[in-house]
């Protein structure tokens, strides 16, 4: 038993998460029996992963920041901004790629600014990124005057709504691709190793010659760039520029990561954990919809699931 536990711990996935996952599988079976809708049908699963893909990419970015000991509450502000910038300048299919790069570059600046506040100015990440998010939202609204200009080109719409080999959503393919990269970055590279050290004990990091500030700033850049990318995907998915695209994704992405074993305060967390944690939350939403549960029960169940998963993990520690 202890061996299994240790294995799990090293794999970055907590006990609570596994237990909760099993519970939800049982719930899915129950829904199937009672309502006659099959959660496990391929179509439904593909739906779930399509919706899941976008926010999961942002949550993986968030994971980097949380491991570094921070928190990024500017995720949704960046998403909405990149969404609107993209729609404004991607007037034709030919411009998709350059504008995409522009959005990612702008987001990198935002991430850099967040990182600057946190590292050089010692601002608590919670407040620093909250401030950034208010500023960005303000700037965007001043710029768009409330109405996003331009339109999402058809090319982007097609990419984001169609399926690979007519089956697997392209969005999901992108997610998988990014997830592999992020996992590799975190688990196998010097950057990832140093990120954990910085989050665990910043003092040791400095004395070991780790460029702490640079590592942290990079984490914020990763988060912001991921968010900007998601903002564009949302544009393609919905086909319409939206001043508030990704609203609420700040807290959702934090919830994904923390449910997956990341610790606010730094030093722990993993891509695989975040992926599973997020999947659990998305499954709940989907199951609730399949079971036609009203909004109120959805909220309560979501809250209780979070409590259960984290509660079990905390007990076992």
């Amino acid at each position, binding site marked *: 038993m202890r061996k299994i536990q240790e294995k799990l711990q090293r794999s970055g996935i907590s006990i609570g998460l596994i237990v909760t996952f099993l519970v939800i599988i049982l719930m899915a079976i129950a829904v199937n029996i009672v309502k006659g809708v099959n959660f496990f049908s391929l179509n439904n699963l593909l739906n779930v992963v399509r919706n899941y893909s976008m926010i999961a990419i942002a949550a993986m970015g968030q994971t980097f920041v949380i491991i570094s000991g921070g928190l990024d509450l500017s995720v949704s502000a960046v998403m909405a901004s990149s969404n609107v910038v993209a729609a404004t300048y991607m007037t034709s299919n030919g411009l998709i790629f350059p504008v995409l790069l522009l959005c990612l570059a702008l987001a990198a600046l935002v991430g850099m600014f967040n990182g600057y506040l946190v590292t050089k100015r010692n601002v608590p990440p919670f407040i620093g990124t909250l401030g950034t998010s208010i500023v960005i939202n303000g700037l965007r609204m001043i710029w768009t005057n409330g109405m996003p200009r331009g339109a999402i080109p058809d090319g982007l719409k097609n990419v984001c709504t169609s399926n690979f080999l007519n089956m697997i959503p392209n969005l999901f393919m992108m997610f998988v691709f990014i997830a592999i990269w992020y996992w*590799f970055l975190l688990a*196998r*590279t*010097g*950057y990832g*190793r*140093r990120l*954990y*050290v910085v989050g*665990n*004990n910043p*003092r*040791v990091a*400095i*004395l*070991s*010659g*780790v*460029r702490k500030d640079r590592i942290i700033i990079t984490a914020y850049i990763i988060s912001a760039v991921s968010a900007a990318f998601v903002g564009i995907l949302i544009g393609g998915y919905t086909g319409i520029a939206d001043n508030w695209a990704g609203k609420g994704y700040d807290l959702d992405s934090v919830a994904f990561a923390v449910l997956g074993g990341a610790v606010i305060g730094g*030093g*722990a967390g993993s891509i695989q954990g975040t992926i599973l944690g997020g999947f659990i939350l998305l499954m709940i939403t989907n199951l609730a919809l399949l079971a036609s549960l009203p909004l109120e029960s959805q909220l309560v169940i979501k809250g209780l699931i979070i409590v259960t998963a984290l509660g079990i993990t905390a007990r076992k520690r």
Partner: protein
Amino acid sequence: MSTMGTAVTGSLLKFKDITKTFPGVKALDSVDMDFSYGEVHALVGENGAGKSTLMKILSGVFKPDSGSIIYNGEEVVIKNPHQAQMDGISIIFQEFSLIKHMSVTENVFLNREPVSRAGFLRFGKARERVRELMALLDINLDPDAKVMDLSVVQQQLVEIMKALSVDARILIMDEPSAPLTDKELKKLFSIIRSLKSRGVTVIYISHMLEEVFEIADRVTVIKDGKVMGTFPVEKLTKDNLVGYMVGREIQDIYPDYGKQIGDTIMKVEDLSCKGELEGITFSLRKGEVLGLAGMVGSGRTRLVQAIVGAVRRDSGTITVNGKVIDNISIIGAITEGFCYIPSDRKLEGIITSMDIVQNTTITSLKKFMRSGIIDRKKERIAAEKQIAAMQIKTASLFTQIENLSGGNQQKVLIARALLTDPEIFVIVEPTRGIDVGAKYEIYKLVRELTESGKAILMVSSELPEVLGMSDRIMVLNRGRVAGILDQHEKLSSEEELLSLAVGHTYSLSS
């Protein structure tokens, strides 16, 4: 030495068959001990022998797996620290237990604040009692000063006041003397004696055997979680005590040196840090241990920090191998061949959540990376080699470093430093909190380093260590070099060193 043989008037506290297991380690194995009224009972043993665990059980921090505690003739269960305090058991912990944002007064009376009947604080009374305590201890501190603004020594004094402010029947002191100067230590001893005469039982834990011989009535030796025996102090000699502790006699704990001192590798000229250091000039040679001594506040720490780039220097030049080095960061220092082994392992040394391999390789990670990717096999092999060379005792390479003893953690830190191929080692308090046996191994390691031509700058507060290990000793006093003692012709004495350190003649045996 011990002339205080107070009449033992019976047992106040008894441990019976106490066993405590942590994951993978049996920390205490059927411990039986007894403590009498009004005695000073020293508890000695190597690090990780179980002394601190035992005391944490007594003070309610841990619960034993089995066994019983008989206190005052009754079997008691000590559920938590609060209850221990209520029962008259007070403890000075080895690691500081002060809240840094709070004032001296607030810390001394934490959780035992003098209050009115409705629970409102009586600030005047608290301050008054702190002043009384300070008068008793001959300390001069601002009762309203924040602990975070105090020096380490001052913090330790607050710690002692905190313990003394309890009307305790049993006072546990876990390494109380580590940061204290001699004068303060003497004061502490006189307080212990007066407590003893009032019938308080003092349990004294220390690595400093001199202290044990000076203050204790009885000594209990613990090894590997087992009691090796309790002895009246008169019946012990230093040698046989060490023998009980490590299970072997150690003739000379300082290894012989090779005395193969080579060319100058580093020159420091006229180094200054505003307000802290002034005109420091010295040189360091290959194969040499340069001891850096001085009182707390003399600027030792600041000097080594300035050298390894942890703080900026305001003026002065540092030349390494003939190359002038500008103000550099720590990263720069590492590339220039420096390595820095800090004194506070927990705060500045180990990465608690990581395993031994990862802890060993963090500073030299670049070596095991190809275009940013870690070659984990290469990393493991390199770490394994170092760990074997250091004789680090561990079940697995992937054990979390938290689970190692202090001595082994220190070895991991040295292994970490070695992997960067440094030429100059800057080691601060290399054996703080490490037991006698492990100390010897660390000393041996240091010697091996010098034999392979490395230069070592060693800061230490333990005089015997500085004297025993150094080829030369640089003494700092108020930010200036007070003198450099060459130990080649003859070994310096503690008196010589101290007189330089405090700036006037100072006699140890006053």
